[in-house]
């Protein structure tokens, strides 16, 4: 974001200069050597296991993995299971709301905190701390707060607003939103931290130049600062999508997937089928569908981000 912007960077994504000293051969191989442990991990622990899960989804595995192929039977059963559709729809609603709200709150809080606020340290810690608490117990607290008879509804009514209603937790049509509320509470602080780190990396000279040109504060933010945070948006998005897809403890602790199965999520479905209901084949099939959905939605975004090859600034 500085004078470097104008510099010619084509030679930066560099391979070492081509002269034939020995040190340079090593230098040529060093980056690849450094990445190789990670490469092995990725191939075995990510893609090897995905292949294994894919194979299992075509078997009649029940309590433990078995290798008797049964064709598409598990997928047929999966798509005849109404609970699965409920959980997929919930995942869509939940992840969109969760990601959008977290990004919005996280960015706003970071900008507000960046206004030379007193007690910034304390506020920052307050916004960040929910990440520290595991949902094994915070789920219970949220359950109490959201329960219409002991929590917020009761409290507000006690203040005199007798007709106040906040009973999402016990309403099958709204229960999924309570998971959004609790999840945003937990993760938005971290997004704030990411954006704050990003804001602090923005070069002051450009902002000063814009101020001299008479740009308003709003313009500086929308035209200069926020666009420069693009890599931060990307990190935050990947992180939030990761949390959303894996949301599991939270939903189990808060609603247990209920009332009924109204707030069920694919991760819960998969875990139950694989480990407590002895339908591992079905569980593997649901994992594959989840992965494919993720591929379909995320890969275009990842691709477009990664195509930006050069150093951007």
């Amino acid at each position, binding site marked *: 974001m500085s004078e470097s912007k104008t510099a010619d960077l084509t030679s930066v994504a560099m391979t070492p200069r081509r002269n034939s000293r020995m040190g340079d051969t090593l230098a040529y191989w060093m980056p690849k050597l450094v990445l190789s442990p990670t490469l092995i991990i990725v191939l075995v622990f990510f893609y090897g296991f995905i292949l294994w899960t894919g194979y299992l989804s075509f078997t009649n595995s*029940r309590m*433990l993995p078995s290798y008797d192929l049964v064709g598409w039977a598990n997928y047929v059963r999966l798509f005849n299971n109404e609970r699965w559709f409920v959980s997929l729809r919930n995942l869509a609603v939940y992840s969109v709301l969760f990601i959008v709200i977290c990004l919005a709150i996280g960015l706003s809080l970071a900008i507000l905190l960046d206004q030379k606020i007193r007690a910034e340290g304390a506020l920052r810690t307050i916004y960040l701390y929910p990440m520290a608490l595991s949902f094994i117990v915070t789920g219970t607290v949220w359950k109490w707060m959201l329960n219409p008879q002991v929590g917020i509804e009761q409290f507000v009514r006690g203040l005199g607003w007798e007709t106040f209603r906040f009973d999402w937790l*016990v309403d099958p049509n709204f229960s999924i939103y309570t998971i959004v509320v609790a999840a945003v509470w937990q993760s938005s602080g971290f997004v704030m931290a990411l954006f704050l780190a990003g804001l602090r990396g923005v070069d002051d000279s450009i902002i000063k130049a814009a101020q001299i040109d008479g740009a308003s504060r709003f313009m500086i933010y929308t035209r200069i600062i926020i666009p420069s945070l693009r890599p931060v948006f990307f990190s935050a998005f990947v992180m939030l999508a990761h949390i959303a897809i894996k949301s599991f403890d939270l939903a189990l602790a808060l*609603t247990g997937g*209920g*009332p*009924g*199965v109204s707030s069920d999520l694919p991760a819960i479905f998969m875990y*139950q089928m694989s480990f407590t209901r*002895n339908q591992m084949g079905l569980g593997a099939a649901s994992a594959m569908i989840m992965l494919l959905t993720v591929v379909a939605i995320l890969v275009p975004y990842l691709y477009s981000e990664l195509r930006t090859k050069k150093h951007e600034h």
Partner: protein
Amino acid sequence: MNFRKSMLTVALTSSVAFTAQAGEVEVLHWWTSGGEAAAVSVLKSMVEKEGHTWKDFAVAGGGGENTMTVLRARAVSGNPPSSAQIKGLEIHEWADLGFLSSLNDVAEAEGWKDFLPEMVSNIMQFDGEFVAVPVNVHRVNWMWANPAAFEKAGVELPTSLDELWAAADKLKAAGIIPIAHGGQAWQDATTFESIALSLGGPEFFVKAFVEHDPAALQSDTMIEAFEQFRKVRDYLDPGFPGREWNIATSMVIRGDAAMQFMGDWAKGEFSAANMQPGTDYLCLPFPGTDDMFTFNIDSLAMFKQRSAENVAAQNTMARLVLSPEFQETFNMNKGSIPVRLDQDMSGFDACAQASMDTFKSTSASGEGLVPSMAHGMSTTSAVQGAIYDVTTTFFNSSMTAQEATRQLASAIRAAQ
């Protein structure tokens, strides 16, 4: 990656032998807190007194869900624990895969078949071999009542479903929440199975939840069971969904609610609140299930071991689990009743004694003793899960009883 086979060959090399040498038992269980932890500590000290070591592997959560994940992970890494808390038909599934070791030597020496009800020893055996040892018996079809609440509303304690709804109406009119309920799938299923038992009797119960007879599953009785189950909704407070069972119990303890349908573990909450059975709170069979007993048995299955010392430790533990001393202390701590029909019950409270009387009479006559569906005793976990999904969806939606019955039958078929 055929790890199951390679792991089995390792496990199979174990030899069964009785030696007095000190071995180790690693026990995977989910009795982690409160009275349960105290109860299992008793077994630990008894095993240690016999010279063996106890490696405690406790993993709590959701009625053993996490424990089952851990057990599978340990099994595929080739290193199953020597003993694990496994229930009902799941015991047979593990035995079928060749993981479990036989306890027949101990069983014969101790005469297990003489004092265990046949129904119970059938669950513990696979191919004629004892592979697990029962620890306790919970009765599920209980109704816990606050007598003060009933008195306030001026109603008698219900003994049939009709009386239940009549009493519930009056309680509601008197401003008391008639039924304390926690809207979680297993609690919904617990209430539903009691209603089905009350309406259809043990024979219907077994046909539907053990044999999964399509005629029984789609019968008018099942439709009626769903209709009656729906009625429960009229007598709950709006905050019921997701509530834990013990919060529901504390509603009865405080007198905010009049009754709760829950297994005998609820007793622990009443005791913790210093309430006396018979005066401060009442334990009654679920209306219309007087001479019936829905059982939920905890058991420890034994996994094949490599070293003879560890096998000896396993056998010692199995023997101790069924000893009258352990049965008494464990069950007094946990609220359940001993699994031995010849147990002296004089030290137990009135509820446990009543429970034991029904347990004895039903297992003697062979009628009325039924395995709990809601607690994984009657069917495979796949089918149980399918029934959970249908009952809890029905209870929390406006689905008709006919539709629920149809879905129940098809979900069970799909899961089998």
